[in-house]
């Protein structure tokens, strides 16, 4: 009589696969941080991505700088490109700046009290964004193609990512605008991967998705 003994649960293939994945760090949740200056288009890009992959936006967008004043997290986004899946959480951070002048907000019709409150909240948001650098596993550094890319905030973000060995892609955003100069971003950061897109119009998102799969997987 042949006795069939089923393999104990801990000897199953999935058990070894789990161990193998843990050794490779594959079970780690990918947390992709969206970093950059205020108004560079981080939330527009995050919204574009969550709309593309889970069918809903992540946050509010406005013309007033520092609209995002706390970190927003969208869990379980699955990006599929060329048959490869990338599962990750989106961490949309407030724009990083070295200064906040509340009078700038008055130009957008905010009252003085609202402008000062916004400035105070923005300082906290920047601190939170910097703290998240310790937790993200990959970063999209979003740069407005119509602005000078060589700013202290961008340099500080990149320096910290390199020091922490966190992979990142520079996203030259707003290429739909007539005064966009994405080539300038390519020329000042030749050592880094730069993808030019319009998050608003959805231009060149395929190339960005492909590079995300390659770099962050």
């Amino acid at each position, binding site marked *: 009589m042949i006795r069939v003994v089923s393999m104990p649960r801990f000897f199953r293939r999935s058990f070894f696969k789990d161990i193998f994945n843990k050794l490779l760090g594959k079970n780690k949740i990918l947390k992709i941080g969206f970093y950059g200056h205020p108004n560079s288009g981080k939330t527009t890009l995050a919204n574009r991505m969550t709309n593309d992959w889970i069918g809903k936006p992540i946050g509010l967008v406005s013309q007033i700088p520092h609209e995002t004043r706390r970190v927003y997290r969208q869990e379980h986004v699955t990006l599929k490109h060329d048959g490869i899946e990338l599962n990750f959480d989106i961490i949309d951070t407030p724009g990083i700046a*070295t200064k*906040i002048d*509340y009078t700038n907000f008055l130009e957008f019709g905010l009252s003085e009290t609202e402008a*000062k409150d916004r400035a105070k909240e923005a300082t906290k948001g*920047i601190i939170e964004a910097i703290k998240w650098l310790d937790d993200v596993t990959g970063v999209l550094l979003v740069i407005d193609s119509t602005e000078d890319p060589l700013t202290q905030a961008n340099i500080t973000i990149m320096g910290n990512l390199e*020091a922490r060995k966190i992979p990142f892609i520079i996203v030259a955003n707003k290429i739909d605008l007539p005064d966009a100069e994405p080539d300038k971003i390519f020329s000042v950061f030749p050592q880094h991967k730069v993808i030019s897109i319009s998050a608003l119009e959805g231009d060149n998102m395929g190339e960005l998705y492909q590079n995300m799969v390659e770099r962050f997987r």
Partner: protein
Amino acid sequence: MDADTKSLKMDFLSSSALNSQTSMEKVSMIVDRVKNGDLVVIEGGLSPEEEAELIETTMREIDVENFMGIDIYTLEKDKTSFFGLSRKKTVGITIIGPANVMKEVKKKSNFLSMIANLGDSDAPMH
């Protein structure tokens, strides 16, 4: 900056003076001086972690009425390796000052020009 005489104080700090300090000491020293209206010129640069700490400390110190933050500019220089095979940029000097004072800064690869704004009554210093 002296609000009465509208003069600007600039502190020049050598790299050896800074190297004896911890990161926290460096950042505190810079923010204290800049918050006081002074301009700090450092030989060399800060590490990326120190830069992040500087921004974080500045955000904690911002008082929307009186201190709006800092501006940082660096001037880089080429550094050639021992055998002259590779060349990379390193920070030669770093200038950090109050954002409401460093109004106009023109920067090229080997040139930095700044106009300090001393007389703006709408930009309080302290």
